[in-house]
């Protein structure tokens, strides 16, 4: 560890007056799964476009696998894998031909053996000569990842890897991403707007909102920032609130009480100190990235996404009426 695979310094991308990425800086360590978490329109895809050299930055610098994304684009491309949010394969070709094309474009000779190994690993070996157009979404996604790994990249960029997938396929893909990290020792840079995905997969997470990185750390660090565990109580009339005076009460509103506790086990202390006959229900609230996002931005990811959509919608309407 300690070695740095992606080094981003004051990177910005502006489209007209809109700052899609606003002066972001972070580093990704070798061998980790790094997540860029944020709502749609926050600048996640733009960041990936910049780091994969698909789009030039307006200002700032970044180094991927040690190479400058502006001055050493060829070297960057040779050392990365890329999996886009939408699945991009040639549906008229079979799996083997798609792999072969990718190998030729990346200038890899003797790709057949590693391609065979990847297909076997991803349980696609029997569909080697089947047209990709007939593949299921999960299979297509797996083939895309196999293609991204073909050139033995230092880092693989995955833009919203599980967007639009069903629960089973999503779980399969999570396992696959962990496998890439553990077996292939490839650094993974992924973007997501699913809190649970970032929480379960990532070693470290950067939270991005309106093009700015507003928090960075491991999932547990970030959760701690949002505050620890809490207990919510629903009580009947006549409940003696003074029995809770040793705890930090966050909210007390019409028989609904929210208490902060330092760890899960402290829930028992709460139970011991109150009159259980007056208790209607009790709930343990575990900290989540949702609560982190809420605390940092004052809105949930869902609300932010809706706000973003309205903004887009209005600008679209305006454009059409002019």
């Amino acid at each position: 560890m300690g070695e740095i695979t992606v080094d981003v310094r004051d990177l910005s991308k502006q489209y007209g007056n809109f700052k899609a990425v606003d002066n972001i800086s972070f580093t990704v360590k070798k061998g980790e799964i790094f997540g860029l978490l944020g709502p749609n329109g926050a600048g996640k895809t733009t960041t990936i476009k910049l780091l994969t050299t698909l789009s030039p930055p307006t200002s700032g610098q970044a180094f991927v696998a040690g190479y400058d994304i502006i001055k050493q684009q060829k070297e960057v491309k040779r050392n990365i894998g890329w999996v886009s949010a939408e699945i991009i394969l040639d549906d008229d070709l079979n799996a083997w031909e798609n792999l072969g094309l990718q190998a030729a474009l990346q200038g890899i000779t003797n790709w057949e053996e590693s391609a065979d190994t990847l297909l076997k690993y991803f349980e696609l070996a029997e569909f080697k000569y089947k047209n990709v157009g007939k593949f299921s979404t999960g299979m297509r996604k797996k083939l895309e990842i196999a293609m991204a790994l073909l050139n033995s990249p230092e880092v693989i960029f995955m833009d919203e890897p599980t967007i639009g997938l069903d629960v089973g396929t999503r779980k399969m893909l999570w396992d696959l991403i962990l496998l890439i990290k553990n077996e292939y020792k490839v650094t993974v840079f992924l973007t997501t707007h699913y809190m649970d995905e970032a929480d379960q997969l990532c070693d470290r997470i950067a939270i991005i909102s309106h093009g700015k990185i507003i928090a960075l750390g491991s999932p547990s660090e970030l959760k701690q920032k949002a505050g620890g565990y809490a207990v919510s109580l629903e009580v009947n009339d006549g409940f003696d609130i003074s029995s809770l005076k040793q705890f930090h009460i966050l909210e007390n509103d019409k028989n609904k009480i929210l208490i902060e506790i330092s760890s899960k086990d402290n829930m028992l202390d709460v139970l011991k100190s109150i009159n259980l006959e007056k208790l209607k229900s009790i709930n343990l609230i575990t900290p989540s990235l949702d609560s982190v996002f809420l605390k940092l931005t004052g809105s949930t990811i869902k609300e932010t996404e809706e706000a973003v959509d309205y903004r887009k919608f209005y600008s679209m309407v305006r454009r059409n009426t002019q």
Partner: protein
Amino acid sequence: MIKETWALFIREVKKTFRNKAVVAMMVVQPIMWLVFFGSSFSHVPSSFLSSFFNTTNYIAFLLPGELAASMIFVGMFSSMSMIQDKRFGFLKRILVTKAPKESIFFGKVFGASTRGLLSIPIMMLVSLAFGVVFHWNILSLVVWILGLLLLGVGMASIYSIITMRSNDWQTPGVVSNLINLPLMFSSTALFPSTIFPGWMRDISSVNPLSFAAGLGRSFVLNTPPNFLFLLYLVIFCFLFLGIGAFLSREWLKAE
């Protein structure tokens, strides 16, 4: 560059020839040209045909012209294929690899030109069936096919250049209607320029279609091929191939 271009070219060829409807259309369309358009002079006195077309069978005159015309029509497929790759994101996939951008352009252009070459044997066979007699001068044949290839590559380059920055499905069709018909009618593809008004004869004398058709007539009518025509087509082809390669570096982008 060569390996990447080859891989992308093979992709185009596979996509074309695996599509049965496309192959069927490529076979049927030139036949329909010869059968319907070629038969339009059937009852014209042969003295008229001889003085205007230097042959008593209009199909013998039309064959080189129609093949030249079919080479300009395939240009459209190079830009359609490019726009499809943009819309489905495949261009992005290529741009994230270390393949040079020129190879994307070359792959499209050569892929489309290959599509056009398929009609050569088919139309020659149909012509034979309609009583056209070939003298099989191999040099003339080779020069003719080379000329058609150069015309196809040049036209496909022009198409790709015009539509390189477009994302719109409709652009290739619009451009095709804009370019192809005037280019075809102002050439010697269908009629000799001797019957044209002066201004159209001027256009015809620099129209690459006329040169490709001229090379074909040397083979069909058994006259020595004009190598200046071939030279002209070489310049035409490499000029636009070069311009396209140069522009693709700037214009082929992910956004």
